[in-house]
């Protein structure tokens, strides 16, 4: 997938000021937490890489959402669609189903419940203040964003 990065929203300045080592793990703020509706994925770019982000409804009224991030590209077809899939649970496991052919993936581990040879890469997520941050590996070539 080719694209050009233009100005992205969010506090990128703090990320750039830390002068990361190439190959190190960084947290990238991606969007406001309230931009993400419960149980409905959004797609975002983590340095050119399409990622699907989910904030799952808490089982307790008013409780904290549970956050997951996995690759947005469907492992079977390569189409950028995982964020558009239905979330759910299978036993105790929280899941997302690929909208194309409904393969079910565990959101925590990325493994496919229907087909052991399919897997989605997972990405750690954390909430800082009002923002969702996703951990990523700093790419070897960084383009300056400010």
């Amino acid at each position, binding site marked *: 997938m080719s694209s050009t990065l233009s100005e992205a929203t969010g506090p990128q300045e703090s990320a750039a000021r830390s002068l990361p080592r190439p190959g190190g793990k960084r947290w990238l703020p991606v969007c406001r937490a309230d931009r993400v509706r419960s149980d409905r994925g959004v797609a975002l*770019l983590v340095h050119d890489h399409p990622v699907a982000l989910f904030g799952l409804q808490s089982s307790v009224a008013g409780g904290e959402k549970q956050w997951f991030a996995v690759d947005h590209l469907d492992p079977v077809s390569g189409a950028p669609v995982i964020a558009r899939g239905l979330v759910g649970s299978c036993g105790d496991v929280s899941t997302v189903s690929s909208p194309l052919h409904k393969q079910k993936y565990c959101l925590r581990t990325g493994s496919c419940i229907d087909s052991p040879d399919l897997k989605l890469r997972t990405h750690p997520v954390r909430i800082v203040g009002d923002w969702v941050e996703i951990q990523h590996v700093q790419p070897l070539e960084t383009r300056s964003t400010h």
Partner: protein
Amino acid sequence: MARRPLVVIGNGMVGQRFVEEFVRLGGCDAWDVTVIGEEPVAAYDRVALSSVFDGASLDDLNLCDAVGLESAGVEFRFGRRVVSIDRVAKAVTVDDGDLVPYEHLVVATGSYPFVPPVEGSTLPGCFVYRTLDDLDRIRAWAQGRKRGVVVGGGLLGLEAANALENLGLETHVVEMADRLMPQQLDRPSSSMLGRWIDELGVTCHFEFATQEIEGSDDGVTGLRQTSGEVLGCDMVVFSAGIRPRHQLAESAGLEIAPRGGIVVDDSLATSDPAISAIGEVACHRGMVYGLVGPGYRMADALVGRLTGDALSEFTGASLSTKLKLFGVEMASFGTGSEEDDLVVYSDPLSKVHRRLTLRDGAVVGGVLVGDVSGYAAFDAMADGSMKTPSNIAQLVLPEGLGAPDELEIPDSALICSCNNVSHGDVRTAVAAGCREIPSLKKDTAVGTGCGGCLPSVTKLLNASLETLGVEVDRSLCEHFGYTRQELFGLIHVHGYTTWAEVLGAHGSGRGCEICRPTVASILASMSNGHVLDGDQGSLQDTNDHSLANMQSNGTYSVVPRVPGGEITPDQLIAMGEIAQDFDLYTKITGGQRIDLLGAQLHELPLIWERVIAAGLESGHAYGKALRTVKSCVGSTWCRYGVQDSVEMAIRLELRYRGLRSPHKLKSGVSGCARECAEARSKDFGVIATDSGWNLYLGGNGGREPRHAELFATDLSDDELIVYLDRYLMFYIRTADRLERTSTWIEGLDGGIGYLRAVIIHDSLGICDELEADLARHVETYECEWTATLNAPERLEHFVEFVNAPDVNSTPVWIRERGQNVPA
């Protein structure tokens, strides 16, 4: 060794059964079989004859695989009548002059309908009710006629009355006795049956002795009673009994019973050992059976004897019957006399009457009207194969009030009398792996005759599965322990409007790709606002999710609504320009509209803005919802059209657009019988007649194509809409997830007949509610895309990457026939 000639006279249901079984058991190894049948068509299901008025075709009713049997060595001569039997020369003479020799002759000539010897019985407009030809003539005469009278209130008479009702006539039944079905029912049960029939608009006249049929060469005008009173009408159907067609045998000198029928012994042999007789023409131990079950038993017994089993015999058959007529279930079984004790349950409000006849504490017979639960058990008690329990008085109570769901019915008791299948046969089949009705039908032939036993078979199947420890779980999924119908009821009754409420009150876990879209659909059918609003947005399946159909490469299609398939040149141009501007692939769909493919998520609002500006709106191609109502050009343009099909199609499409349902809904309106809109392959199809619209229900294409069945004829515009409102809402309320209308109707106990009762006669008393629900849909309808474009919070969904709104995937395209397609 040369084969010996065997001739069968008659290719009715019993004659056909004989030939089939004979071939199956190898009879053609030693015999050369010739079948001579008077009707021009091969054997068909005469018991189901009335279904012709529900749209059944000759193919549907056909029982005879003539090609298959011919290849096994059977010769068929259809449309030929045997005129005499020469017992000395051992040959029969056919009406074409042919002489056919036999070494054994089987007479299966059946019955003829009895017509009372009154003056005027042959006037135009008088009919009998026996053959397909009779029904064709009845249907033709009924066109444009007002009132039909059936002479004879027995079983067949009531069937004929049902047929006339369905043809749209004001229907009357006249009966000489003081009640309906005088052979099977006593006065109280007959009177209860009468209450059901009253409700359906049929008027019954008792102790009516027809003296003369009045009329002229132009047609019948009425029936005059011996009292002098005249019942006016323009059609008469005689259904006053059947008489055995034993004339051939009589002329040949065979013994005939005093009240008719060829006398046969337990081996089905007549007074001439080279000739046997089976079916309605035979009289066995003084009985002539007018039911197909005993006829089949006779055929089987004769096949046994002729294929080498000398002990094969017929010793009589049960007269037990269970049937459904006009939506009412009835059963009668066993015997009874005046000295016997009676246990009776009778409720005129729910119109249920159940009577058991006891002798020395054992059930010997009975009659059930309106609720036939326990029939199989009672029948088994009456024929002695099951002991009568001591709480028998409690068992006469109807289902739910006392009759236990499953009495332990012995294996030997029959469950299907048409095909002689016992409870044991079904239990064995289930134990051997049959898990649903279709495989049981295949393995045991149960329910493949009249089909009346199927509800009992279902109960037996479930009970057997339970006994085997196989769970019968009809829950939607692991998160909801309910069927879709039950869940619909819960949501409807409690008035839930959010997923959180539904999941919280009745579900578990986080739901899944089964229950989330199911709840989404139910909420949408109850007019719950925009499908992307609130927590409904997290319930939407692949296409509804983005109000667009996702394609194999993750791009989407755009399908505006083109009601009735009618589009203006300006709209066509606008669609063309939109496709060019966005570089979209275009195609015309089977639903008579235009598909634009290759749009990306972020382009959808921009494209729809243009579409809406061109005067079009969402086509809901992305929803399990009403898709299109196709049309032919109709009376506006076509020289054959009799009604304005385009106008009606548009009207229907604009009324039901956006209605979400268990499966997609497709429709068509044709302007005449040539049916260019293919309405008969639709969930609801409308075909114009001179006086209105014929409505067909339950058709579909897809993997299992079905033809829609005729539901009602000559409807006015308003009637059509009322029935459709009710039909669609009833389907939405009660169907299973992803169940098409065809399967849903088939699964209703009583099929399309039951549907008529619910929709036309409001037998469940819910029509007001159904109409109100549909009215709410119409009142609150708003084009989903227009509503999306008007709300920034809805437009948020149409950004590909939320942290990079100006960046988008670039799908790879190749050119094919001048357009972009996925690489």
